């Protein structure tokens, strides 16, 4: 499969803050590539440099062989960007928004019109095509936001956290449509801080934190990095934060972080140190309602690599 995106050595500083510090990415045709990391990891900054919104301090980006810079328009036609913010005109209708951005991608006339109809069909807004988007529900706006990115059939579609603040139903619809895209041969760069999304959608995932890529590979490759370690999921209430802190210094524990249910722990030889773990948790003031030793997932990989949880 030919390479669509090649980004090498991307660096971006904002005053003293190093937002992105030497990121390399390569994505091939038909591949869905995930950029997984917590908020503030540098995902949006990386994407802004890849889509030519932001000039990198160092490094280069090329899409479909064309160098991408903020000052040139070359190569941008190959990219479709779906920004995290809803960048649509609230006082224009869905079809007007699509037509407008279509023109900016150099589309015109009948081909533009029929493509707008197609996209409206795909994103399920044909019935509401002539309503002002300001009156849309959040999910409808999200769908249109994605639709604009798809309009000109880009070779690389970049989706920046497209499911943030979306209800579960719309979220599922969005994920399904992204799954279909790779079938059509489109390369997709998908950023998220939801581990499940990365696991479900992406052929390859890069784990990014503090501006650098900590690891990269298929899900299987990444999980294997965790090695012989076990992931212990404890359902607990009470002082889980305190428990996590106390656990980190326990021998045999690689990482511990509060999770949705209670605690996520990565440990060597879980069965041996499990009693010690449980004692530490209870002593820290948390009450345990359940314990599970599970197969490691990307969450565990992140914990393994950074010692902290994906969501905080």
């Amino acid at each position, binding site marked *: 499969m030919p390479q669509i995106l090649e980004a090498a050595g991307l660096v971006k500083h904002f005053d003293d803050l190093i937002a992105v510090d030497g990121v390399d990415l390569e994505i091939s045709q038909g591949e869905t590539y995930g950029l997984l990391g917590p908020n503030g990891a540098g995902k949006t900054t990386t994407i*802004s440099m890849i889509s030519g919104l932001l000039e990198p301090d160092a490094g280069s980006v090329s899409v479909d062989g064309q160098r991408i810079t903020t*000052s040139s328009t070359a190569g941008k036609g190959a990219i479709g960007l779906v920004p995290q913010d809803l960048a649509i005109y609230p006082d224009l209708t869905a079809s007007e928004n699509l037509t*407008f951005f279509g023109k900016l991608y150099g589309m015109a006339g009948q081909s533009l019109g029929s493509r707008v109809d197609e996209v409206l069909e795909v994103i399920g807004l044909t019935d509401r095509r002539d309503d002002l988007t300001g009156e849309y529900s959040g999910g409808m706006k999200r769908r249109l936001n994605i639709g604009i990115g798809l309009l000109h059939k880009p070779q690389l579609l970049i989706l920046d956290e497209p499911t943030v603040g979306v209800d579960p139903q719309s979220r599922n619809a969005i994920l399904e449509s992204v799954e279909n895209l790779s079938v059509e041969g489109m390369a997709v760069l998908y950023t998220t801080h939801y581990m499940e999304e990365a696991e479900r959608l992406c052929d390859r995932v890069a784990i990014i934190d503090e501006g650098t890529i900590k690891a990269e590979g298929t899900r299987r490759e990444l999980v294997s990095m965790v090695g012989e370690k076990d992931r212990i999921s404890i359902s607990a209430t009470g002082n889980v934060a305190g428990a996590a802190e106390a656990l980190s210094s326990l021998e045999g524990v690689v990482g511990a972080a509060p999770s949705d249910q209670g605690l996520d722990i990565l440990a060597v030889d879980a069965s041996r140190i499990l009693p010690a773990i449980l004692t530490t948790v209870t002593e820290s003031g948390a009450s345990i309602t359940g314990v599970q030793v599970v197969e490691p997932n990307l969450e565990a990989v992140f914990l393994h690599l950074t010692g902290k949880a994906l969501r905080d």
Partner: protein
Amino acid sequence: MKALAIGMSNIRRMLRERSNIFFVFIFPLALILLIGSQFGGGVKPAIGLYIAEAGELATDISDEVESQESIDTRRFDTEADLVTAVERGHVQAGLFLPANLDSTAAASNVVELGFVARPDGSGQQLQAIVGSAIADVMKPVGAAQFAVAASDSDFETANDVARSIAGQAGGVEVSVTAVGEALFPDTLGQFDLGASSQLVLFVFLTALAGSAALILTRQLGISSRMLSTPTSVRSIVVGESMGRFGVAMVQGLYIVVLTLIIFNVNWGDPLASLLLLVVFSAVGAGAGVLMGSVFSNDQQAGGVGVVLSLGLAALGGCMFPIELFSPTMQTVAHFTPHAWALDGYAELVRRGGNTGDILLELGVLAGYAAVLFALASWRLRVAITRP
């Protein structure tokens, strides 16, 4: 081409907002109508008349005042009513004719008439008009009083003689001519000058108010999204500017065409008038884009925009004729683009000038537009390429 798409989407969004329809299309016309009926020739200034006692002189004076074509006269029954009417502005001035006018005159005493006016510009002009009407009536009286003193006749005889020969002398005429090609007020319609002031005021006001649309576009991340498409920064800057310019032109042409049809306003030479509108709209558009790039809060931009557009309009002579400014203020006024635009329209409308006569005004306004657009595109470039 892409710039055109950006410009057109701006115009479409402007036309879609109902409050814009009001401020851009309804309000300016209503104001031109209001101001035209207020200050234009259609309604004459009114003067109130109170006559304490009927008599020959009182009748002569009131007839003469009432026959003045440039004013309307209304009679009042009591002195207090007239005073109140003047104070409230129901009439612009009041004339009081006291009792015993005839006997005072016959006794060769000075006849004292009272006049009250509002302390604004029209009061002095009314006093001049009323004063000359009264002077006409009082000429034979004065002559008779003089003759009584210089001969041994009685007042009545002298008064009869004076009245009979009044008007036989050649008299002294005051003729007014204007330097320039045309006589001024005669050719001007009621709405002519007011209309160009309002045009200039509103085109600029709307252009600045339009900065809110640009701020919103930036806030929503649409500007960034545009930049992610194969559209250059230059195209975006030109497109946003074209949008503001287009909105200004739509409004300007609307005002010109409708006032032409409804109020029969004279806009002078069509080509020159259009050129003036084009360059002034460009000035407004440049200022609007600059505001839209500098501010990131549309409420603040709105407040500052109102102050700037009304303030510059006032300074530039849209609310009060610039010719009545003090020399210093006239100089200050010509720092505003409004004053130059109004100068241009005055040349076209009052003197029937053509494009050649307003080259200076066109040039200055084009200069304003160029500077503003240069600043605006620099700021907008920074604003949309900044993360």
